[in-house]
């Protein structure tokens, strides 16, 4: 996928002015957060489950080498094949080789962000294998030659007329305006593909070393058909998606759907263990797992290790004031929102994705809703520190921060300066107490007034209170 993250500021400006996008994003705002809150309200133990899930994920990462090898040998014991891929290119090539080994011409695909990340569709197409997305949202996007703007609701940036239009054009059918009819049309078209495909490719929400199983969760049943009907099932998953046992999986089943769509449980949770067994009348004859690294092993032991706990629920972006204003495409690559702002710089380079960790108010909502307690603001801040160290942040910002840091180390000057600034701002603010124009803060005052300070500075108030306390002998 083409990297558009360097143009983040322009992307965001365009997104804010796009009436269709803004209408579509209203569906997100009025949907997921409220549903999540309601679902969690019905499970009093939710916070304790989060704590345990965090610990289990940490445990899995601290022993990741062991669990990967154990999982791989279990898959082989079950009659499956494991392939290790260090990079996107290795992963794509491995998958292509498997497709070629069975002479595959078309492959059906369940929804998988890892395959977006490695650019699998483009790669297969270039090598004469046709991938067909089967998740309704992903299918709509594929017809439009578009990409997901959200990790679980890929077509959230579109409205009904967009779907009507592309179906009529690509299917050669009469234009339909009823969503139910559109879905039936997709069902009919994709059913042909489900049964005709030579290979089915799915992601995995988790892999289980205890049993050598992988699990996918879907509401549509598309991933489940994708992995049941073709002769070959390829699971493409990334190395961190480890949940050691089925009992540990229970925790994540209780957290994932509630955090994501606010459902009590996703409609289909399907556990796959090896290929079809003796006597089975259906199911794939071959089962392959491609373990994708693509930069993740470098995150072990560094500042970003916490990010390896991520279960891709999307709660962080669903609650993000920035995402909900600009949508996912503005972020310019596969993973949007707060989790993307942490992950994308690692995957495409901070020189490409430098704007993303800065596109946050640090309101902290993302961290507060994360089912595995990833400190997303802290991780974004760590990218900002990297930029400061590498001198890749804007020179004015660096100068301002350095100036502030110097002042902060000279308390008397700092106090003097802030007292003068407070008085000056009050003076300029006048009776209305608001500033219309600040020469050094036009990014703010172009759009809204800045309130002038009302009282004394914190330090002055602190000193006054101390003074009062000493007068009253310490009683407030």
């Amino acid at each position, binding site marked *: 996928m083409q990297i558009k993250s360097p143009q983040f500021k322009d992307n965001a400006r365009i997104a804010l002015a796009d009436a269709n996008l803004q209408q579509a994003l209203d*569906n*997100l705002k009025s949907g997921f957060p409220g549903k999540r809150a309601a679902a969690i309200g019905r*499970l*009093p*133990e939710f916070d*304790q*489950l989060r704590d*345990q899930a965090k610990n*289990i994920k940490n445990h899995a990462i601290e022993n990741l*080498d*062991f669990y*990967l*090898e*154990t999982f*791989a040998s279990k898959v082989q014991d079950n009659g499956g094949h494991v392939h290790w*891929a*260090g990079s996107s290119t290795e992963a794509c090539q491995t998958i292509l080789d498997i497709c070629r080994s069975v002479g595959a011409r078309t492959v059906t695909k369940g929804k998988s962000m890892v395959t977006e990340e490695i650019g699998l569709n483009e790669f297969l197409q270039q090598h004469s294998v046709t991938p067909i997305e089967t998740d*309704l949202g992903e299918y*709509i996007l594929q017809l439009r030659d578009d990409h997901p703007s959200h990790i679980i609701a890929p077509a959230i940036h*579109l409205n*009904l007329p967009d779907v009507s239009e592309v179906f009529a054009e690509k299917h050669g059918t009469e234009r339909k305006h009823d969503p139910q009819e559109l*879905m039936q049309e997709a069902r009919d078209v994709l*059913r042909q593909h*489900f*049964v005709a495909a030579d290979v089915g490719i799915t992601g995995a929400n988790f892999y289980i070393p*205890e*049993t050598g*199983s992988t699990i996918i969760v879907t*509401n*549509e049943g598309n991933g489940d*058909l994708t992995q049941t009907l073709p002769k070959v099932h390829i699971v493409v998953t990334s190395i961190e998606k480890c949940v*050691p*046992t*089925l009992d*540990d*999986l*229970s925790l994540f089943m*209780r957290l994932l759907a509630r955090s994501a769509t606010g459902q*009590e*449980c*996703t*409609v*289909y*949770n*399907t*556990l*796959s*263990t*090896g290929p*079809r*067994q003796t*006597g*089975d*009348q*259906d*199911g794939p004859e071959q089962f392959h797992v491609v373990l994708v690294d693509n930069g993740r*092993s470098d995150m*072990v*032991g*560094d500042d970003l290790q916490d990010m390896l706990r991520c279960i891709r629920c999307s709660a962080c972006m669903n609650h993000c004031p920035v995402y909900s204003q600009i949508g996912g495409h503005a972020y310019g690559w596969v993973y949007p929102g707060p989790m993307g702002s942490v992950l994308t710089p690692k995957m495409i380079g901070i020189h490409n994705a430098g704007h993303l960790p800065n596109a946050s108010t640090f309101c902290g909502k993302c961290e507060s809703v994360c089912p595995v307690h990833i400190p997303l603001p802290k991780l974004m801040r760590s990218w900002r520190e990297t930029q400061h160290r590498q001198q890749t942040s804007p020179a004015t910002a660096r100068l301002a921060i350095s100036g502030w840091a110097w002042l902060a180390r000279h308390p008397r000057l700092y106090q003097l300066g802030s007292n003068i600034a407070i008085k000056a701002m009050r003076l300029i603010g006048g009776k209305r107490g608001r500033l219309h124009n600040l020469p050094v803060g036009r990014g703010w005052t172009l759009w809204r007034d800045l309130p002038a300070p009302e009282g004394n500075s914190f330090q002055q108030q602190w000193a006054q209170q101390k003074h009062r306390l000493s007068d009253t002998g310490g009683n407030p």
Partner: protein
Amino acid sequence: MSQAKHLILSRIRKGLGRGALPMEQQQRLHARMAQPQRNLVPQRAQAQGQAAIDMFVAMATEAAAEIINISQLAQIPAYIGNLIDDDSRPLLLPQEPELTSLDWATANITTATRVAQKGDLISLTTCIAGVAETGTLVLKSGPTSPTTLNLLPDIHCVVLRKEQIIGGYEDAWDLVRQAKLPRTVNFITGPSRSADIEQKLLMGAHGPKRLVIFLL
């Protein structure tokens, strides 16, 4: 060992600041997997007896599954006759005598015991459990229970006995672990759906449009 595998494991170990795990730690982790411990099981998932049955019915209904109470299997053909109406397509059955031996002829229903195909209307299967906490059915693949029966037909009917209703997912794993793991374990909660068009919930995306549970 493949080059990629070697590099991935080396990078992980370097990040963790150690070599391969010491033997005793590996044994501890193997033991953790061999005797898996439950994590916190929510109160709701600990329900038993009638409370569990009531919860299953409430949660499955909320997930848009249709529940039909029956007192014996022999009642099923008449109900399925109503579901099929006058559609001539066969009812798909697994090769399980308790279902194939029912009196389908009297209800004027043709049956077939095969895997499901494109265009099939309806199937009837058994399951291994119903999980009360979310109204979820648990189904295993096997020689007499093809997975396609659960996914391809427009209507999926499932027989669930009240004594099969368990509290939480943990109880389901205990059942699954009693034998060699099958190729597929399906946890199914209601019929297929999608909200990919304008976030409005539509029923019947790719899997069955209706999920009918005969509660025995």
